[in-house]
């Protein structure tokens, strides 16, 4: 932690960055912190409560953050994939940001706690299970000691996806239409997604209106399918969409399913290399086509 504070203080003092975006411990638990004064650096923390994918603040839609000037961003391994995503799609110039990587041993599912608690099968964020990227490589600085593997959660995301896959079609339909019918179209999932970079979302087009704007079951289904498809092969599995969803739609399950699809079909895994093309928009002559007559 001191390591992090020292570095932040130095970067700010040397004027290498104008703001450090990291985490702080506040009234209701850990939350993003924006440090512009060297002394503010002492408020920075990194522990299992630091769930937020701060890369979302690099998203070009965040003018008010960009206005602060050059950013020093604290990222976990999983967050680095989002940075790679922005670079891959020309939404970010690598030199415009200083990346401070922190070695990560997994984070909590519920982060609004006065202080960090030890990770257990019950409280660990399921997405951390099997994480292969706990030490970001895309970074300018890598801090912290190597961390132990996070524990296996009581219920893994794979198990939940498998549980759905095991259900008959009608059950799955009932489940998902039920879930999506809760959606009130606040679009929080989109706003917090580091990869939802569009200036004007297709959901806001009215001519033609591919996606009905009002939150009824039919429009909600179109929206949620489209959101998922647009992230196919791009989603970095940071889980922010689900975390921010005020009505608790398990978007992680859809995202994970799509990760499985591109992995099985195209042997593709979202990674930290911006040079590797996303699977959609790319092709191989011998892509399997068993579903095509």
């Amino acid at each position, binding site marked *: 932690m001191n390591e992090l504070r020292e570095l932040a203080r130095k970067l700010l003092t040397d004027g290498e960055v104008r703001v450090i975006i990291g985490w702080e411990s506040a*009234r209701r638990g850990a939350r993003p912190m924006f440090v*512009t004064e060297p002394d503010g650096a002492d408020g920075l923390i990194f522990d299992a409560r630091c769930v*937020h994918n701060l890369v979302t603040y690099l998203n070009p839609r965040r003018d008010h953050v960009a206005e602060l000037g050059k950013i020093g961003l604290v990222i976990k391994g999983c967050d680095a994939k989002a940075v790679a995503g922005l670079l891959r799609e020309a939404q970010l110039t690598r030199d415009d940001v200083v990346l401070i990587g922190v070695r990560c041993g997994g984070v909590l599912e519920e982060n609004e706690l006065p202080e960090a608690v030890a990770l257990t099968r019950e409280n*660990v964020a399921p997405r951390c299970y099997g994480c292969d990227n706990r030490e970001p490589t895309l970074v300018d600085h890598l801090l912290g000691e190597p961390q132990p593997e996070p524990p296996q959660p009581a219920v893994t995301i794979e198990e939940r996806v498998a549980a759905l896959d095991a259900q008959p079609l009608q059950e799955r339909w009932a489940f998902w239409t039920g*879930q999506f019918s809760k959606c009130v179209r606040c679009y929080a999932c989109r*706003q917090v997604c580091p990869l939802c970079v569009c200036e004007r979302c297709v959901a806001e087009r009215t001519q033609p209106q591919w996606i009905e704007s009002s*939150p009824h079951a039919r429009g909600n289904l179109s929206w949620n399918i489209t959101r998922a498809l647009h992230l196919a092969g791009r989603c970095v599995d940071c889980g922010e969409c689900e975390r921010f969803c005020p009505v608790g739609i398990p978007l992680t399950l859809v995202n994970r399913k799509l990760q499985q699809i591109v992995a099985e079909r195209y042997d593709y895994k979202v990674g930290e290399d911006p040079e590797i093309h996303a699977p959609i928009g790319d092709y191989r002559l011998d892509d399997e086509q068993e579903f095509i007559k």
Partner: protein
Amino acid sequence: MTDVTDTGAAAPQRYFISEADLRALAADLLGAGTDVIAPVSVDACQSPSALATAACLRPGVAPVDVEYKAIGDAAELDLGRDLPVLSLKQFFLPDHEALCRWHQRGLEVTVEEVPTTFAPRVVLAAKPCDSAALAVVDAVMNWDYKDELWNGRREASTIFNLACPVIDESCFCTAVGSAPDDVKGADGLLTPVEGGYVVETTTEKGRALVAAHPARFEAAGDPAMVGRIRQTQAERAGARSRVAANLEIDAESVRDWIATHFEDPLLASLAIRCNGCGACSSVCPTCHCFDIVDEEEGVGRGTRRRCWDTCQAPTFTLHASGHNPRDDQHVRYRQRINHKFSIYPLKFGEVLCTGCGRCTRVCHAGQDLVEILGAIDIAARRPGEAAAAAGAAAPGDVEAAS
């Protein structure tokens, strides 16, 4: 805030209703074909239980949510639980509703209006912060154009609040002129006591409901009532002070400071972590902005609907020209604060917030209205300390500095 010991209006009638009688009352109403809306526990998955556990149940997340629902059976009543995820707003300004429908054949177009009168319904155990919100929003729904759909639903509804038993660090109703036992916007109040509830009616509608079901209510005068009431007095006072401990502000000072500090870097700095997700507006009992959309159902036929919108969305103020006067998130967040705590009170004399704290609870970026109002209050009343408080980043001032 309505003090039960002394009211400006007609003194409240007091009754007692037992847990059983309350359910019986609900059953009577349902039997008579009256909709009964109440907080109920719902399966977070609304799906076969196998899936509920396997697919939805996430460690650390409650398997059930509390929601306001039109119940089908008195047994569903589940009073006294947490604050519902969505406020009571949805029953007066639904997230989407038809305004009219159109049909076109050849060159002839017919428009079909929607009804603006509604069947009577009863809301049981509404949260005081939710009913109060309805009263606050009544003002904007009637100051110029009379919103028939809103008013129709208001008139059709009889609301009984439940003195709030769940108070956490995000609550601040007392700071914005409400209270955990407020009856504002409601027709009566239920206060839990041994074996049931003390019932107070504060409006004609409230009294009418009691009058219609005499068998369910024990009238006052019963000696036991005195004790019960004394007990509730104490609990209610305690609840109020617990909320007050979270936040105390001078609403007028805050109102005037915001009005005169539009460009103050503090406002920008307070907005810095906001992602503009707009979830706060969706769950807010007082946010009432809506969008109007035409949704086709094939060639020459469709429905015009209004649905919730939020000033936190960039498209909210996007002009046809492409220009956007609020093209930046901290500006949009300022608008939210400004509208609720300055513009609205200046226009309608009331703060557009009842301190339910939903916006704070729902914000996973850590935007904390208790903290934000506190900071503004300090700036307004003790400018010296404000400077220190505004240590955090502010796009405005950094820009100025650079």
